């Protein structure tokens, strides 16, 4: 029989039985009036949706699970405790309720009945026609207070709902904690799409840097070469300078603003100074990164030439080569970034490598004062290396032999 037909038949049978006196007892307990008991059994069958058979829960021993429903202000914790107490078969569940009782399955409080203490219903709904002087908790069940019924305390329905019918009353707080619902994230992007998207992003960034780099070579080659040489000849020093520079960027900015604010004329210059400062930092960072690419490209080109490869050594080639090498750092992440743990590691490694290169470039730009100071570029011979030999002119046709002075006779 389909569920709908079964319900209709049971409801019809229940209606046929004359309503007895409203002095009802909890389902399965007491010795109520026979027609009323029959009616209740039918209604119980109607409400029965495959849940456990109604029964009382025995108290656990001293080491067994205990719940205290006198305060229902931590419903998640209470749910955890109740679920932990459940056993299979359900009849094997043991639970001590401080100041109350526990039951399994559907439970009904008769209209002439008063329950003193808290009521915990596991895997079933509670119907209250009478009075409960305490809190009511259901786990995976509803709480329904029918006309004339009342609950003097709080109500918590975990995985269920609280209903009041007519003048059924709840004096305390009603709480409903719904079952957890898993909300899947948005449709995951196919791996190929991710790879293509990231590759497109990298290509775009590369093109922008390439345009900036080629422009820098065209319009500021001397400065770029000095910063690049500083990277090549003072790599460690540039990194340290860059690190220090990054730390000091914000304090310097603050000091600049405060220093300007101290004077009336300076205060007017603050917006301009802020814009210029930000611009200088950005240009230094990007220019430094391009100088690192230039240095790397130059090194690679020289090695290829040393191997006999015929290429045209120029700054344009260096920039292109260097940026290509920088892109290689990210290529591994683009291709394998979707791998759960390795992808994160690759992203971290690529980020760290890029940051290191940017730090070196930033430091080199600082050390060389934006490509105006060659001190760290390895281009000058230090004064200590200078000797008088460099001051002597070398005769073009050799030095004529000088006859050794003869010994004079004493």
């Amino acid at each position, binding site marked *: 029989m389909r569920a709908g037909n079964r319900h209709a038949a049971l409801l019809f049978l229940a209606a046929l039985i004359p309503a007895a006196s409203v002095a009802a007892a909890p389902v399965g307990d007491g010795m109520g009036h026979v027609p009323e008991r029959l009616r209740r059994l039918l209604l119980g069958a109607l409400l029965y949706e495959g849940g456990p058979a109604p029964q009382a829960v025995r108290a656990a021993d001293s080491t067994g699970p205990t719940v205290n429903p006198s305060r229902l*202000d931590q419903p*998640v914790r209470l749910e955890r405790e109740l679920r932990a107490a459940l056993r299979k078969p359900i009849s094997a569940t043991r639970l001590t309720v401080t100041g109350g009782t526990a039951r399994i399955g559907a439970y009904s409080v008769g209209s002439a009945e008063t329950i003193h203490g808290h009521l915990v219903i596991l895997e079933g709904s509670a119907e209250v026609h009478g009075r409960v002087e305490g809190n009511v908790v259901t786990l995976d069940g509803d709480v329904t207070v029918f006309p004339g019924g009342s609950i003097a305390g709080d109500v918590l329905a975990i995985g269920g709902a609280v209903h009041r019918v007519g003048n059924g009353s709840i004096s305390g707080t009603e709480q409903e904690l719904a079952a957890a*619902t*898993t909300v899947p994230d948005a449709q995951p992007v196919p791996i190929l799409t991710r790879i293509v998207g990231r590759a497109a992003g990298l290509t775009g960034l590369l093109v922008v840097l390439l345009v900036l780099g080629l422009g820098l070579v065209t319009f500021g080659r001397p400065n770029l070469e000095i910063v690049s040489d500083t990277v090549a000849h003072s790599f460690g020093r540039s990194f340290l300078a860059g690190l220090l520079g990054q730390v000091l960027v914000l304090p310097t900015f603050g000091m600049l603003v405060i220093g300007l604010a101290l004077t009336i004329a300076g205060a007017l210059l*603050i917006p301009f100074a802020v814009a210029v400062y930000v611009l200088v930092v950005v240009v230094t960072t990007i220019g430094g990164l391009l100088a690192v690419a230039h240095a790397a490209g130059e090194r690679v080109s020289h090695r290829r030439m040393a191997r006999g490869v015929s290429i045209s050594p120029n700054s344009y080639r260096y920039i292109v080569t260097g940026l290509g090498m920088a892109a290689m750092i990210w290529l591994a992440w683009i291709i394998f970034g979707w791998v759960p743990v390795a992808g994160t590691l690759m992203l971290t490694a690529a980020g760290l490598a890029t940051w290191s290169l940017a730090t070196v470039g930033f430091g080199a730009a600082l050390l060389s004062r934006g490509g105006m100071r060659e001190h760290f570029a390895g281009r000058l011979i230090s004064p200590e290396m200078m000797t008088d030999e460099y001051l002597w002119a070398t005769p073009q046709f050799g030095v004529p032999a000088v006859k050794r002075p003869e010994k004079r006779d004493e």
Partner: protein
Amino acid sequence: MMRTSILLAGVAGAIGVVPRCTAQVMRTFSASRPVAAERFLHVTLDFSGGTLVLLPATNGQLYGMKLSYDADHSSPVQQYDPRTGILRLGVESTGSNGIRVTSRRQLEQTARVEFSPDVPLVLYANLGAGDASLDLGALTLTELNLHGTASRASVDFSRPTLGVCKSATFTVGAAELDVRHLAAAGCAAINVDGAVGSVSLAFDGAWRRDATLTVDLSMGGLTLKVPRGVAVRVAAERFLAPFEGKGFVRAGNTWTTPGFDQAPQKLRVELKAAMVGIQVRWIEP
């Protein structure tokens, strides 16, 4: 040939592999309590992140809350002591993070909170990251303390509040605060304490009583919208904080509208601002 096939199959397999998608566990929680014989309600509302809506209750509830929260990172809070009238509501991050947001998913949380208009209310609201819309109109508000960390909060007194409001304090971290119909709040003292943010205070609505506004802002913008006809006196201690307002007579660090002492409706502003743009705009009634 065989190797090529295997290679192609491997590549196709790799491309076809979809990473295991993570899922978010959301739960709903609701709590409500009918009005009994409460003399007042002292509420602490904590909301770690997401969207919060606060309204006056219309169905005889003392308070009500409907919450959808990220069960992996948050847990609902509902503690009420009927003897003291102290209520704690909201959602907080699990662990020792308080109301701090520890997951981007917490921003998808939603809460709808209601309070009875019949019971005197002291409200302390702590908002984490997210959006908050609070309509406190028609509540019997006696004290308001709103603390926004990194949130966008909109507070409206759409109808005049009831009772005597002692003070309304807004503390903003890096937040955006927009308060409307502040005149209808009827609070004697209004305090704004902010670090970095944008604050807009509109004193429109039914004017209940004269008010003193104290503002201490560090960086950002402050806009005061005042109905034309209300007399305003602004005493400002400023540092890099330009004052922009028409219709004021300046005397030192004080800006006053003409006829202030005789005006029936007065707003006194005590302002401490550093690197803040201050604007006073007049609203036509």
